[in-house]
């Protein structure tokens, strides 16, 4: 039964296997292309460089970044989408890389903590975290910073949050109160409880942006 249905899927020309070098998708012609546990080639732009990897379909973006590319700045905390330590940007939006299938990111633009600095200069959010002591042990910090960077862009784009009193008017960076920042950063946990300093760091980076 399961063989028949699998063949049905394989033989459906418009069902495709994810990930070729161009970041596009290949037509499924051969059964081996979707063999269970088979590896797939995927290409993505990571911190401005095109990187090609061959991964198992079950490989998360987090494991691909850390194990395949050696980008260990992105941390594995809970590995179940609860702590935010693995936050990276996909096409400029923050995502939890532990809950993201690497093979589905073909052609996407990924930014990790390693990709924030520019020409040897820290990103303003990185600098603000140092200035305000926004960490103790540092394990959650790369996720916090990636979230903070994207969060400021979301505020600039006028996105409301659950803390926004009036969602009808367009949100601006000037509306980023401490309560707004706390709500918008609530997907990133800090076991050292550096929250007051994290809020200060994000607020200053937002004000300067």
């Amino acid at each position, binding site marked *: 039964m*399961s063989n028949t*249905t699998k063949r049905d899927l394989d033989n459906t020309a418009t*069902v495709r296997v994810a990930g070729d070098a161009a970041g596009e*998708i290949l037509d499924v012609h051969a059964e081996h292309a979707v063999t269970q546990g088979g590896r797939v080639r995927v290409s993505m732009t990571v911190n401005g460089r095109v990187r090609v990897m061959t991964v198992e379909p079950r490989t998360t973006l987090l494991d691909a970044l850390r194990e395949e590319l050696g980008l260990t700045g992105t941390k594995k905390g809970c590995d179940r989408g609860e702590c935010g330590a693995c936050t990276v940007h996909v096409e400029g939006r923050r995502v939890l890389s532990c809950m993201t299938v690497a093979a589905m990111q073909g052609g996407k633009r990924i930014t990790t903590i390693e990709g924030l600095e520019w020409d040897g200069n820290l990103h303003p959010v990185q600098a603000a975290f140092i200035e305000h002591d926004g960490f103790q042990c540092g394990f959650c910090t790369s996720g916090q910073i990636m979230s903070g960077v994207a969060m400021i862009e979301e505020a600039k784009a006028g*996105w409301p949050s659950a803390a926004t009193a009036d969602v009808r008017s367009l949100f601006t960076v000037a509306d980023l109160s401490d309560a707004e920042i706390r709500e918008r950063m609530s997907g990133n946990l800090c076991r050292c409880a550096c929250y007051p300093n994290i809020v200060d760091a994000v607020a200053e980076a937002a004000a300067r942006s």
Partner: protein
Amino acid sequence: MDPFALASADDAATAIVAHARDPQLAFIAGGTDLIGLMKDRVELPERLLDINGLPDIARVEALPDGGLRIGALARMSDVAAHPDVRRRFPVMA
């Protein structure tokens, strides 16, 4: 996670047929729910079909009759930030 095969579809009819024919196939969009269930081994699909390539179902649009259509692939954050949602359906935003 247990091993699985991954494919993607670029039209809805194909995706629906593939799903109807194959009880071991699950759709995957964002994965926030499914990946968690798979990591906990609550869901153990043998095949995942990536539906992010399906056209026109990520849209959020106001309808002439005063209603709102939210595509199945629309992200929560896009719904919340959508001007029509903010103006006419602020409770949802």
